[in-house]
């Protein structure tokens, strides 16, 4: 008599696995911990309003109105493909062009929006401004832009901190995000 071989039926294995898979697909999300990082200024009452004189040449003004139209250095603009290079040239001018910035420490990119500006447009411009600065930092540190941002994300590793400090030396991230104007929106 042939002995009955003990077997677990595995025809339904695929169904069970699919069920589990579906459960995980429905109940979980892809984590997204990435984005544009900024530091907010101190609370308004902590800093007494003082008249800080900033020379016109040290300001790179970017304004957006409530219908998402741009005003750059007082000129209406639609094409923003060259904006990144303009900001880089402005920050690294070091007094060569008398109408541009004195040095990177004094150079300020002033970014002003309206209450009716959409978040999409705001992010688009902030991305360009930060991109210009990261490009400058990366070049000074001798790494690629991506590598620099990766290093800046985790400063607890000594190598990363070295890259970060080398890149940032002498060039503060002077992006001023002003309170929005109240023409459009609520």
């Amino acid at each position, binding site marked *: 008599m042939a002995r009955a071989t003990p077997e677990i039926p595995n025809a339904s294995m695929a169904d069970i696995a699919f069920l589990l*898979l579906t459960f995980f697909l429905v109940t979980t999300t892809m984590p997204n911990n990435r*984005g544009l990082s900024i530091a907010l200024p101190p609370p308004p009452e902590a800093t007494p309003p003082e008249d800080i004189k900033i020379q016109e040449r040290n300001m790179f003004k970017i304004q957006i109105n409530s219908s998402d139209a741009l005003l750059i250095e007082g000129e209406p603009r639609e094409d923003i493909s060259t904006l990144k290079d303009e900001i880089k040239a402005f920050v690294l001018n070091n007094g060569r062009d008398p109408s541009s910035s004195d040095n990177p420490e004094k150079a300020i990119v002033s970014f002003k929006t309206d*209450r009716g500006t959409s978040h999409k447009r705001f*992010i688009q411009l902030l991305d360009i401004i930060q991109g210009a600065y990261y490009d400058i930092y990366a070049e000074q540190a001798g790494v690629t832009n991506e590598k620099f941002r990766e290093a800046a994300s985790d400063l607890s590793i000594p190598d990363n901190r070295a890259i970060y400090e080398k890149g940032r030396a002498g060039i503060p991230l002077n992006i001023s995000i002003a309170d929005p104007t109240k023409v459009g929106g609520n």
Partner: protein
Amino acid sequence: MSKFKKKTEVKQEIPTSSMPDVVFMLLFFFMVTTELRETSIEVKQQIPKATQLRKLMRKSLVANLYVGEPTKPQLYGKEPKIQADDVFIDTKDIVRWVNEQKAKLDEIERDQLTVALKVDEEAKRGLIADVELELRKANARKLLYTTLENPKDDN
């Protein structure tokens, strides 16, 4: 006649014996790369795209605020709202909310709290500026506008 008959005997089945292995592989992939939903998001979340992203390393130091139009306009109206954890909050509640988040952390890490603003593309800058002002008052000054990666650099 027999010539033709032979051809019809070709097997036409897809082998299914490796199906469980394939599905388990997919299952493990999703288990490893995703995380459980902690809140059910009640606002529209069409996140804008950017290229110059930075990553937040320590998830425990991140607090999320969601801003956008409610997904159920018949219940909550059409105006963009702020959602924290599982409830809608007003701008004036943000200071209290930040203090709650800070209380969850160790004392030494309280000033390292980062607020991740997950804002819908369509939301207006005015509301976000109000949120930022409250965050400044609450002294939570590290901010991250959550964005998706834009693969092509088309600025």
